[in-house]
């Protein structure tokens, strides 16, 4: 029947996840600061990563897995497949996300974006040769992504504490639930499941992972190389990216950030001439 083979394969993985989550609690939680230290408590709450030591273990596991599998596969993909074809595959896989993006556009009460997703699917599947060519973007309808984690956020759900999922990477309770709901709700998964069993779904997910890794090859490499604490950097970037996706790229109301505050930032006379020419 419809999605049952998919459920079976998830059920097969379930004991693994159970064991991992038990190991997670065994390896302990972060030490909370003394309640008297208000600044430290505020910082601890803002970091919002109560199981940090355990999450770091999973993060390192994922990183080892990346270096052993995803990174070499992406490197091979990047060097063997020309840019233009890679772009085509990227577009093709994005196009296959159209149904689930459409559903989430609707669930978020955004008919305008839903219509755009539909229009893109229509144009790209036909004129765009099964989605390989993103003709719709050229017509002023760029790709946008949505998922049920974002939908939950627009309904007012908070993200909860930071989580790192084995294999799947950075997340939080809201986005983990979202990912599971999308998996069962996605018509493409149902179609693929009925056609050929589950391998098609995993090939699709795996293909997207390789595509992502190859696409952001330089950025990921730089972050890993230049950050002092890669774990904390990824945690921060994940949250910022998710919040940006939830806002659909609109700027937030209030952005905390630095300002020019001191005389040291104002250039010395030699440099001043050059800068003042700009005004």
């Amino acid at each position, binding site marked *: 029947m419809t999605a049952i083979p998919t459920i079976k394969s998830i059920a097969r993985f379930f004991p693994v996840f159970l064991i991992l989550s038990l190991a997670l609690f065994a390896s302990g939680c972060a030490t909370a600061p003394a309640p008297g230290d208000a600044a430290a408590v505020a910082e601890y709450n803002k970091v919002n990563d109560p199981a940090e030591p355990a999450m770091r273990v999973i993060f390192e596991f994922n990183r080892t897995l990346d270096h052993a599998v995803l990174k070499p596969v992406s490197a091979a993909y990047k060097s063997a497949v020309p840019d233009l074809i890679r772009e085509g595959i990227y577009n093709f896989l994005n196009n296959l996300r159209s149904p689930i993006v459409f559903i989430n556009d609707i669930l978020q009460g955004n008919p305008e974006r839903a*219509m755009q997703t539909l229009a893109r699917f229509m144009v790209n599947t036909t004129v765009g040769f099964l989605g390989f060519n993103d003709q719709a973007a050229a017509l002023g309808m760029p790709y946008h992504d949505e998922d049920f984690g974002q939908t939950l956020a627009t309904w007012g759900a908070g993200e909860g504490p930071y989580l790192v999922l084995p294999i799947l990477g950075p997340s939080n309770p809201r986005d983990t639930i979202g990912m599971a709901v999308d998996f069962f709700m996605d018509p493409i998964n149902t179609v693929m499941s009925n056609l050929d069993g589950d391998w098609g779904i995993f090939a699709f997910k795996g293909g997207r992972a390789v595509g992502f890794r190859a696409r952001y090859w330089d950025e990921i490499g730089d972050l890993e190389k*230049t950050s002092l*604490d890669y774990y904390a950097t990824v945690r921060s970037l994940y949250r910022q990216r998710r919040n*940006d996706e939830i806002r659909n790229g609109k700027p937030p109301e209030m952005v905390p*950030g630095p300002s020019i505050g001191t005389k040291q930032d104002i250039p010395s006379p030699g440099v001043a001439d050059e800068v*003042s020419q700009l005004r």
Partner: protein
Amino acid sequence: MARRFIPTLSVFMLLAFAGLMASAPLAAARAATNEASARAAGHEAGAARFIESLSDRAIKSLTTKGITRSKRIVRFRRFFADRFAVRGIGKWILGRYWRKASKDERAEYLRLFENLMVVSYVDRFASYAGESLKLVKTVPDNATTTTVYTEIVQPAGGAAVRIDWRVGFKDNHYKIVDVIVEGTSMSNTLRSDFGSIIRQKGGSIAGLISALREKTASLK
């Protein structure tokens, strides 16, 4: 399966035509609103010009092919110190720990922070492949800070990358205080990164300084 799938697909495609018809006027309306907000008074025009000149200057002097890495580092260091509020950013990244730092620690930290930024980003200019900066809009955040919204346009086509520049204005000078790439702020990310190191070192700035020194040395 096929019997169920095909009607779904055709409904989807029919709706798609409606979407195609509806989206064009909406896009036009949105563009008009953006223009109106950009006309607000303040430092917007100056900040936008500052960012444009920054891009021109970077393309002209930092992306030169065939110069040595050390030469590029020298150029980029000057460029970075000129155009970025290094002290303002460095201070904000430390947050409450800035107050705990001694004068010497602050100076050493700022020096290493500048070094880290220079060696982290310098190689990006070497691999420049004709990308260009497109100004989208300029919006004031408050009395002293303006955000210049831009897009990096790839010469080969493909999706543009959103970059927002937060530009501070003080004593007749413009300085970048943050760069936000696709919603991810450089200053916020560094604050998390450095903050995590300080906490691991038991709140010690000296611990951060030694981590910074190690990292910059490894990247040189």
